[in-house]
C-alpha cells in the first residue's frame, strides 16, 4: 500500500501581490513529490480555511510580506481549529520580524521561514512534520 503524498495548500492572504516566494515554494514542494494547491492572490482567511478543508490538506503554508501577519495569521489558525483541522501543520514564510515569531508560534504556527530560508529547509520541515499526530 502506498501512502498518500503530503498535500499542501500554499496560501497568499492579504492585499499584497508579491507572489515570487509563494510560487517558488509551491514548485519546490511539488518537485519534492507533494501535492500542492496554490490559492492564488488576495485570499481572505475564510477562503483559505475553506480551501484547506475542501482539499483535505496536511499542511498550510502562508506567504505574507506586507506586515499584516499579526492580524491575518491568527485568524486563519482560529478558523482551522473551528473546523476541526487542528492537526493541520501551519507554516508561515515572508518578512516576519524576530519579535513577532514567538507570538505566532503561541497561536499555533509550527515554523516561520524568514528571508534567506532555503527551499530545502522548507521542504524538509514540511516532510518531517506534516501528518504528525497533533
Amino acid at each position, binding site marked *: 500500500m502506498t501512502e498518500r503524498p503530503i498535500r499542501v495548500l500554499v496560501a497568499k492572504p492579504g492585499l499584497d501581490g508579491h507572489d515570487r516566494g509563494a510560487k517558488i515554494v509551491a514548485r519546490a514542494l511539488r518537485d519534492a513529490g507533494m501535492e500542492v494547491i496554490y490559492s492564488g492572490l488576495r485570499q481572505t482567511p475564510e477562503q483559505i480555511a475553506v480551501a484547506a478543508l475542501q482539499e483535505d490538506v496536511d499542511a498550510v503554508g502562508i506567504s505574507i510580506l506586507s506586515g499584516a501577519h499579526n*492580524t491575518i495569521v491568527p485568524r486563519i489558525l482560529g478558523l482551522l481549529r473551528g473546523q476541526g483541522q487542528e492537526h493541520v501543520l501551519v507554516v508561515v514564510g515572508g518578512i516576519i520580524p524576530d519579535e513577532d515569531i514567538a507570538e505566532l508560534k503561541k497561536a499555533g504556527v509550527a515554523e516561520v521561514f524568514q528571508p534567506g530560508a532555503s527551499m530545502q529547509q522548507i521542504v524538509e520541515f514540511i516532510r518531517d512534520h506534516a501528518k504528525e499526530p497533533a
Partner: protein
Amino acid sequence: MRKSFKLGTETPASRTPSEDERRWEDETLIPSLKKSPERKESFTTLSGVPINRLYTSADLAGLDYERELGDPGRYPYTRGIHETMYRGRLWTMRQFSGFGTPEDTNRRLHYLLEQGQTGLSIAFDLPTLMGYDSDHLLAEGEVGKCGVAVSSLADMETLVAGLPLEHVTTSMTINSPAAMIWAMYLVAAEKQGANWKKVSGTIQNDILKEYIAQKEYIFPPAPSMRLVVDTITFGAREVPHWNPISISGYHIREAGSTAVQELAFTLRDGIEYVEWVIRAGMAVDEFAPRLSFFFNSHNDLFEEVAKYRAARKVWARAMKERFGATNPRSWLCRFHTQTAGCSLTAQQPYNNVIRTTIQALAAVLGGTQSLHTNSLDEAWALPTEQAVTLALRTQQVLAHESGVANTADPLGGSYFVERLTLATERACYEYFDRIDALGGMVAAIERGFPQKEIHDAAYAYQKAVDRKEEIIVGVNDFVTEEKRPIELLVIDESVAARQREKLAKLRRERDNAWAKGALEALASAAASDQNLMPVILDCVRAYATLGEMCDVLRRVFGTYEEPAFR
C-alpha cells in the same frame, strides 16, 4: 574555443580567433591555465548570459559607430540622451517614500527635501494601490504599512501640505487607480493656485507590468488600458509637463526575471501603450515625448550598464522605425532607476549598503535620469530616517566625490560592454518576435507567457542559490551568528484607527448629494467611450473617496483574476 556574438541583429555564433589571438592563446594562455586553472568551468552574468575570458578589438571589428552607438544626445542614443550628460545636470535624487498617515509621510517628504533630495516619490499602501479606502474590510492590518494611506482629496491635501507643487516634481507609484490619485494631486495643486501647465511629475500608471509581475490589478486588461489611454491623452492636452506613465521593468526584475526579460517585457509594454494611444486617435509625436521608463539595477554591474544602453537604442529604433515618430523627443528612453530590493539581505544588513552602492554606480554609468537608492534595512521593513539618509548620501558621494559624473558614457568603447550591449539588444528583439507572434503584450499576458518566463527564471535562480552555485554573502556563505543589529520602523494599528476616524468625518461633513451625483456621472461615462479624466476630477472635487470611485468602476468594468498557476 572562444564564443562570442556577432554584431547587430545577427544570430549568436562563434567567432574564429585572429592570428594574434591564436598566438596569445598558445604562448601565453595555455601555459598559464596549466599552472593555475580558472575558478569555474564557465562564467556568466547574474542572468546567465555566457561571458568570455577576454574581449578584444576583434570583438568589435566592423562596429559601425554612428549606427550602433552615436554620440551622446544623438540617435540611437546608446551613449546617453543628453549631449553633456551629468556635466550639465546631475541625475535627480529621488527617494521613494511613504508610510503611515498622510501627516507622517508629509513630514518625511519635507525632511528629504531639507537633506538635499531633488525630487519627491510617493509610495502608497496596499489598500490604496488596490482601490480600497482605509476603512474597507480588506484593508484591515494593511493601512499605512507598505506606503501612505490616501483615500480622498483630504488625505492628498495633507500629504502635499507646504510643498510648492509648481516647483517640485513628484513621482507617484500608483497603477490601477492612477487616474484617481493623479486627479487628487491635480486638484490639490489647483487649490494651491498652481497652474497645471507648470505642474510636473510622474504617475507610474503601468498596468501591464501589474499583470506580469507586481499583481496589483483591479480591472480586466481592456478597461485598464482604456484608463491608461485616457490619462495619456488628457495629460498631453492639459498637463503637458507631466509624465502620464512610467513603463516599469523594476517589478518584473523583482519578481525574478533576468535582465533581458526585464528589458524586453518593459519595452514591449511600451510598444503596446503606443499602439493603443495611436488607435485612440492621437498622433505619436503628440504624446510619445512624455513616456518615461523605470528600470531595476541589480548586482551585476556590466550587465546592468549594457541593459540601459540597449534600452535607449531599442526604444529609439522602435519609435522611429516602427511608429514613424519624427520628433526626436519621441525617440528618447528617459528612465528612473531603483536599486534592487530583491538583492537586499535580512542577514548582515550593513552589506546592503555595499550592494546598493554598486547598483547605484551601474545606474549612473548607464545614464539614468533619476535614481532611488534602497536603504540597508529594507529586507525587514520600510526604512528608518537614519537609513534613508545614508542611502541618499550614497548618491551624493557618487555624484560629488567619485568622478563618475565627469564624462558621458564612461564605459563606451569597452570591448566587453559594447559586446554585451549588442547581445542584450539581440536577445530583446528575440522576445519582441515571440510576443508579436502571440498577438501583442495583452494577448501574451492573457496566455501567461511573460509570467511563466519570469517564474522559470526565478525558480532556476533559487535552485542555484540553494546549491551554492550563486553565492549571496551572509546568506549561503560567509554566514555569522548575529543578533539583528539595526532599529526598524514599526507602523502600528493606530494609523488605521486615525484614518478610519478621518474618513467617517469626511463622509459626514462633505456635500453628499454632490459626491453622489459625481459618482453617477462617472458610472455613465465609464459605460461610454468618453475620456474619464474630467469626470474623475469632478468626483475628487466633491470629495468622493478612492474606494467609492473604484467601486463604481468595478461595477462597470468587472474585476480581473489571473490565469491559474500550474
